[in-house]
């Protein structure tokens, strides 16, 4: 339980901390430090287990289906990072108390800081790689929010955006890499992944996975060529820079390399990618740091350089190098965090960070100056300080690399060169800021020492620098051993922590670096002149320009695709369907399956022939809308006949009644519309459309032919066998609709109802004036309701209602049912509207069709929910048999109530749609007000 607690306490603290913002900065700082202190206390009991190389696992199920579990793991390496995060976090909380001004939003600041702390602990304590990924992204997000904490500064917002784009992009690559690894191993649990190192390295996807994971690590840890975001992240408040961008978050990439070291390292690819990236970053960072006039800019580039150093150590692939890397992680975090805090104090007290203006501060703040100088000496690698020890190990390791021929000189050379630069920029930090004449034009003058407590975090860290530097084995020895053993998977090489290892080559390199660096600093003006010859690249401008180019490209692309033309969209949609389908269809060819073709009889052939002709004729004559409609109705009727011919009586009846309603609907619409379509397209456009249409038609023919001639198995045996005993009906189609798949039907009638209500809503306040004639000069007939039609239609109504009742009742056993009966009733009513007009009919059929729809849905739902009363699941049906005269013996099932719901919904929906359209013309709109009143 204690590990999830450690991770989630800071998040809880983030929720609680803003509540203390009212109490002032001290209150909130105390509140914010509680989670970190409790977390440290929770970790303490585990130390004895971890020191012996043990591992603590706390695991809970989360989404086992995708391999995501809520599992946390504590070993030496994660303990080391957790301690860095918590201890430095505590110091930062104290420091920020004095750094922030009272009027600033301290609640937000501490909440974000604690969120970050929790996310970072999540990364280092997660045992599941997917879980780690979630925390990884959370650190990117919290970092974004913290960099842009001063939201009014444009530079801060831009820097934050750049950091998010780079680290977020790397996060995506990392996710892909993790998914590949999980796929290879079959698990995302760290223990499984670490144990499967050989499997991963032998897999053909190993290079891809490694590249993706390293992309994630390199972007996060600001490795060349992704290093540019880190200096721009320095727009953040200094506590954030000290915490996220030197001590913890930028080490997440390093942590990842250490964590997956047993699983991924040890190959040539690892060696070249990691060590050369590290070498480039080491040199570039150190070189640029020398020329930065901004105090934090210098420190940021120095951080880049040191991150490169650690990466290079991991890339070397030897066990001793990995130990040195872990050691330098500790040392760098300590001295760099203290330097950032010192830089923050200087900024705070002088109002500027420009080293050309802040000079000679020794006189004004000797205490801070002493602390900063010790820390900077550690950064330079001066003996008796912690930076010296790990740098010495680094020099030693750089000599051990077995590169071929002359290349063997490269690592020590790079190492020494970077050492020279490190000494030079450290010397600049010390000499420029604290000596070198008098301050120039400071915004705050005279500067003085900061509040007493603001220096305490710096003092603690500087003390640690000295302790580790003088008593390495006593101070960090056990922790380093536990962390190194966890990194290397249990085996730790022989190494010796001592202040001096005798007079050897690495020491010579240190001397060279030290005196070379001092010489370089003394000759700095020449270097500055040399550097000034090159135009400085403003990464921010380049980045912003790149982003706007991408946005512009996306806009152009969108504008081309999305030009507001429905015709264009339809064409693109159809073309992409054809493009996807064409290759498999070509392969299929004209395929006739095993069942072969069956002979055709003359009536069927004629029917199909007429259907095909009418279909093409509809398309060909579409500009004469009325003819097209007549031809369409022929097609629809032939389709109904086709259903009847091929053993689907229910479908035939449904199609027939729907066909009638559809044609009436289209006629009604056509009444308002132009009866003629103008010719707007060019012949070439029509040829193109015909080609698309033919491609679609041929494709469908080929697929249908292949399917029809293949034997098949169906799940319908179940329905055929259980229809009578289980559903109480012999019409299997109807039983499927109202019983087996009743829930689907409920959904479908709901859609029907929504469509009808949508139609009503769309037309509610719309008026359309129909054209005075049919478009060819003929006026409409004056006799709107012909006598003959009226006289025939009226007696039809009771007859039709009787038929529909009969069809409805027998539906369970013979073709029929709620859908068909509903449509027949609807057709009979529509006939009355057509024959006798809106007002006459409405007076005699005084229903509001909305209510009919509602009633129908209610019946269907009640029939379904009724089974709950008897302890059965939704829509369980029961049945019994009743005998009525004439109708005969029929079965009454609870499904009949359901079917009644279907029946009512179909009537209501159909009539609501048609009546809404019929009411459109102003003529009927005026009259229908009577009905509405």
């Amino acid at each position, binding site marked *: 339980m204690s590990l999830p607690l450690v991770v989630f306490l800071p998040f809880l603290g983030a929720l609680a901390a803003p509540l203390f913002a009212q109490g002032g900065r001290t209150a909130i700082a105390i509140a914010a430090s509680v989670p970190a202190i409790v977390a440290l206390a929770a970790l303490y009991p585990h130390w004895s287990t971890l020191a012996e190389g043990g591992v603590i696992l706390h695991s809970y199920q989360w989404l086992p289906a995708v391999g995501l579990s809520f599992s946390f793991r504590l070993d030496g390496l994660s303990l080391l990072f957790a301690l860095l995060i918590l201890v430095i976090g505590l110091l930062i909380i104290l420091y920020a108390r004095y750094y922030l001004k009272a009027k600033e939003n301290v609640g937000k600041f501490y909440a974000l800081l604690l969120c970050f702390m929790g996310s970072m602990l999540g990364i280092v304590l997660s045992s599941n790689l997917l879980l780690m990924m979630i925390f990884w992204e959370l650190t990117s997000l919290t970092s974004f929010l913290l960099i842009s904490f001063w939201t009014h500064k444009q530079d801060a917002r831009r820097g934050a955006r750049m950091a998010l784009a780079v680290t977020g992009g790397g996060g995506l690559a990392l996710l892909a890499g993790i998914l590949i690894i999980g796929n290879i191993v079959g698990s995302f649990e760290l223990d499984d992944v670490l144990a499967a190192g050989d499997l991963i390295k032998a897999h053909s996807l190993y290079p891809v996975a490694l590249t993706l994971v390293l992309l994630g690590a390199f972007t996060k840890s600001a490795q060349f060529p992704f290093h540019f975001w880190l200096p721009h992240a320095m727009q953040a408040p200094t506590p954030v820079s000290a915490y996220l961008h030197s001590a913890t978050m930028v080490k997440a990439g390093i942590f990842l390399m250490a964590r997956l070291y047993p699983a991924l390292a040890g190959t040539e690819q690892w060696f070249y990618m990691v060590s050369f990236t590290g070498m480039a970053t080491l040199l570039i960072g150190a070189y640029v740091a020398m020329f930065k006039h901004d105090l934090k800019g210098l420190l940021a580039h120095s951080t880049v350089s040191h991150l490169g150093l650690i990466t290079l150590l991991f890339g070397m692939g030897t066990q001793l190098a990995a130990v040195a890397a872990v050691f330098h992680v500790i040392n760098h975090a300590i001295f760099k965090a203290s330097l950032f805090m010192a830089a923050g104090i200087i900024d705070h007290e002088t109002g500027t960070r420009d080293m050309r203006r802040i000079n000679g501060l020794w006189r004004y703040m000797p205490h801070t100056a002493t602390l900063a100088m010790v820390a900077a000496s550690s950064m330079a690698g001066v003996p008796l300080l912690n930076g010296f020890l790990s740098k010495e190990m680094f020099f030693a390791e750089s000599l051990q690399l077995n590169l071929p021929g002359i290349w063997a000189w490269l690592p020590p050379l790079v190492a020494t060169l970077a050492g020279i630069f490190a000494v030079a920029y450290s010397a600049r930090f010390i000499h420029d800021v604290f000596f070198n004449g008098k301050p120039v034009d400071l915004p705050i003058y005279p500067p003085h020492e900061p509040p007493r407590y603001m220096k305490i975090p710096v003092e603690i860290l500087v003390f640690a620098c000295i302790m580790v530097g003088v008593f390495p084995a006593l101070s960090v020895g056990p922790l380093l051993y536990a962390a190194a053993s966890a990194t290397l998977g249990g085996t730790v090489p022989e190494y010796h922590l001592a202040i001096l290892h005798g007079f050897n080559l690495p020491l010579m390199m240190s001397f060279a670096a030290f005196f070379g660096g001092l010489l370089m600093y003394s000759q700095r003006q020449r270097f500055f002149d040399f550097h000034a010859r090159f135009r400085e690249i403003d990464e921010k401008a380049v980045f912003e320009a790149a982003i706007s180019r991408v*946005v512009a490209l996306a806009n152009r692309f969108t504008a081309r695709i999305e030009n507001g033309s429905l015709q264009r969209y339809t064409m693109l949609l159809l073309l992409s369907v054809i493009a996807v389908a064409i290759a498999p269809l070509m392969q299929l060819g004209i395929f006739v399956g095993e069942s072969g*073709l*069956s002979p055709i009889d003359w009536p069927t052939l004629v029917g199909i022939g007429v259907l095909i002709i009418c*279909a093409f004729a509809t398309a060909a004559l579409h500009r004469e809308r009325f003819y097209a409609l007549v031809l369409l109705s022929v097609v629809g009727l032939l389709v109904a006949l086709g259903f009847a011919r091929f053993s*689907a009586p229910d479908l035939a009846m449904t199609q027939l009644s729907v066909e009638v309603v559809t044609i009436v609907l289209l006629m009604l619409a056509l009444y308002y*519309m132009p009866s003629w379509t103008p010719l707007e397209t060019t012949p070439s456009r029509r040829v193109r459309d015909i080609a698309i249409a033919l491609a679609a038609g041929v494709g469908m023919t080929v697929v249908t032919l292949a399917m029809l001639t293949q034997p098949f198995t169906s799940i319908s045996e179940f329905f055929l066998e259980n229809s009578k005993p289980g559903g109480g009906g012999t019409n299997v189609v109807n039983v499927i609709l109202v019983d087996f798949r009743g829930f689907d039907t409920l959904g479908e009638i709901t859609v029907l109802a929504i469509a009808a209500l949508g139609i009503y809503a*769309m037309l509610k306040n719309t008026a359309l004036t129909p054209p005075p004639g049919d478009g060819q000069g003929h006026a409409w007939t004056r006799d709107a309701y012909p006598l003959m039609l009226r006289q025939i239609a009226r007696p039809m109504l009771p007859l039709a209602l009787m038929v529909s009742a009969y069809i409805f009742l027998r539906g369970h*056993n013979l073709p029929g049912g709620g*859908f068909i009966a509903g449509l027949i009733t609807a057709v009979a009513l529509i006939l009355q509207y057509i024959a006798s007009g809106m007002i006459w009919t409405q007076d005699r059929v005084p229903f509001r069709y909305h209510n009919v729809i509602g009633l129908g849905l209610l019946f269907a739902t009640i029939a379904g929910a009724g089974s709950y009363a008897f302890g059965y699941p939704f829509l369980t049906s029961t049945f019994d048999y009743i005998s009525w005269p004439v109708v005969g013996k029929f079965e009454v099932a609870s499904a009949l109530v359901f079917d009644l719901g279907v029946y009512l919904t179909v009537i209501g929906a159909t009539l609501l749609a048609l009546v809404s*359209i019929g009411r459109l013309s102003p003529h009927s709109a005026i009259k229908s007000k009577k009905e509405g009143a």
Partner: protein
Amino acid sequence: MELAFALAIGALTASGVYLLLRARTFPVVVGLTLLSYGVNLFLFSSGRLVTGGQPIIGSTAGYSDPLPQALVLTAIVIGFAMTAFVVVLALRNLADHEDDHVDGRQSSTAPKPNADKEVSGK
């Protein structure tokens, strides 16, 4: 028989697709209707072409597959609802624009879509 049936589906699809690509609403609605005939027949034919095998228990020796029939039955009704909805959209378009072009505007007086807006944050 299968070939003729497949050709019928092909003809319905081709005519439907051609009409879908027209510029006025009414032909598009007609095209949608034709296309839904084709799709319904296609779905139905996944139960194969059976003569005299209506799925009424006890009425015949061998039954056709009732499942595609049940699917198509609801598809026909839903298809009608969709046609009605599209028809009404077309009518509403006509009422609002006094024109029945599918893009809701007269094709000759097409306004330029406002693209190329700068999105980068300032």
